[in-house]
């Protein structure tokens, strides 16, 4: 059973050191901007989104989760040519949703992490496309095939990445 329902008392809440809380998102944004230059296929991954999901689920605080999402999203927006706020809004929603889920469910094992990432990747893309088309007026093409493919790729990457990031977790 990948996802188990737990009470709040049973769920462990983690925190992160300040350097880890700053450097992990920065590294994710840096790799997202740098690696696709050498490995073009890497652009289907969204490392900052995976970091947002990881932090939100681990901390299990909705306010912290949405603030982390907003900060990472705005940082990612700053590197694009588009108006700032598109990724910010999408990742704020994901941060809030993932931390809300983390409060209710145990998402510590690989299967649950895969499913959670799959779901929130699609949610992130839907929010992003809605805002980009509705508010900014960008011409976006939605392709379920591409989005689902990217969602599975990100979910597959999330499993080992989250195991790696688990090393930075500190028990409260």
């Amino acid at each position, binding site marked *: 059973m990948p996802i188990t329902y737990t009470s709040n008392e049973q769920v462990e809440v983690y925190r992160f050191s300040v350097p880890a809380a700053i450097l992990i998102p*920065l590294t994710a*944004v*840096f790799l*997202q*901007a*740098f690696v*696709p*230059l050498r490995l*073009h296929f890497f*652009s*289907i991954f969204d490392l900052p989104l995976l970091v947002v999901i990881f932090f939100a689920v681990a901390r299990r605080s*909705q*306010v912290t989760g*949405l*603030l982390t999402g*907003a900060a990472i999203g*705005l*940082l*990612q927006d*700053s*590197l*694009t*040519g*588009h*108006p*700032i*706020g*598109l*990724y*910010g*809004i999408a990742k*704020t*929603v994901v941060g*809030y949703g993932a931390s809300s889920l983390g409060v209710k469910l145990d998402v510590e094992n690989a299967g649950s992490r895969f499913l959670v990432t799959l779901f929130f990747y699609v949610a992130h893309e839907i929010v*992003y496309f809605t*805002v*980009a088309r509705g*508010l*900014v*007026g*960008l*011409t*976006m*093409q939605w392709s379920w095939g591409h989005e689902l493919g990217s969602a599975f790729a990100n979910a597959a990457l999330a499993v080992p990445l989250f195991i790696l990031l688990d090393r930075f977790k500190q028990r409260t």
Partner: protein
Amino acid sequence: MENLISRYRNVTVLVGILFAQVVGLAVQVQRTSEDRSTRLIRVWAVDAVTPLEKSIVWLQRGGSNLWHSYFYLRGVRQENRELKQEIERLRIEAVRLSDDAEQAHRLQALLGFKEQFISRTLAAQVIGSSGSEQSRSIYIDKGARDGIRPDMAVITADGVVGKVLRVFKTTSQVLLINDQTSGVGAILEKSRLQGVLRGTPAGEVVLEKVMSDEPVLPGEKVLTSGGDQIFPKGLPVGTVTKVSPGAELFLNIRVKPVANLSKLEEVLVVTQQEQREPAVADTGKVRASDILAQRLPSVPDKPVQDANKPSSSASGLKNTPSGASASKPGLTGTEIPKPGGPAAVTPGQTATSNPKPHAVSVGPVIKPVSSAPANPPTGGTDVVKPATAPKHASPAAKAPDEATHPPGSVPEPQIQPEPPPDKPQPEDQPQ
């Protein structure tokens, strides 16, 4: 109320943060210069990320140079021999091309064309990308400190890459031509049809605003038209890969960029462009017809005539030397509108209308006309006549016609108005 807020604290914060971002987005969309409001955030983000990118690129480049320059030298002798042979071949080619270029320059000078030159470029290393599939831009390691400014053209040896979007102190953001918000004035090499090159959300490049009644074939090259005032005219952009009917009588032309936009490592930023008339020393003594006569043996040489000699008429056209034409030495009695002159000179109209730059391009098909058909054409009576087929009649296409005129015949003078309003393409000159 307090209880309510504390009870729904999380949702309140969520709504507040989302509302603030939506307002921020709306403000950016409304403002034309969004950089002013978000400049600081972008500077912080770029300053946080690009130093690391720069150092990694620097290390990578250093390691690569060390390997390729000192360790991995296998096959260098063989490559050296091949390169020397290539140089010899290119030298021979250069002699031939310089002759053609010289003639093209003389003709351009005669016709008063302005040439666009890339007079200064700056090499830059690509250090990062936007990291988003929706926004196709890259970062280079040169910025305001190096003289980069927004809207400068960015190219590679292969062709056009994009333009500078934002400039920071030591880095710049370059908008690639396959981004959906980019636009490049482009022209098809053979058909000379102009359009706007745009990126699609999928990262492809399409040529828009080309009427569907014109034939466009896959494989045709796409060049910059210079109409956007960013890219110099004539730079290669890509090749037509697919043509299909589009909306509202326009063609849907898919273009494959010549530059590999997904694997950019080094680019050139065009920091200075010049527009000047081609400098040819003997321009004043050479007439267009004389140049053609050199190229086409069937056209006999003509003696140079006095510019003030009264003109005669031919085919109902009169030629009155204007101040502009008379002031041009060598243009004796030949009314050569400057590029950009009237789009067409109708028969019967005096060919001394005031030509304005960049509306008509005059190819080397201006032919002298004499009133006596049996005699070779003489100067002083040249008249101009508009061409009937303005679009596809490039000078190169017309040159064979001229060659078919036997000596002593009366070739009709023509002006070929062409859609691209700038200088003629050097490759279109008669060979």
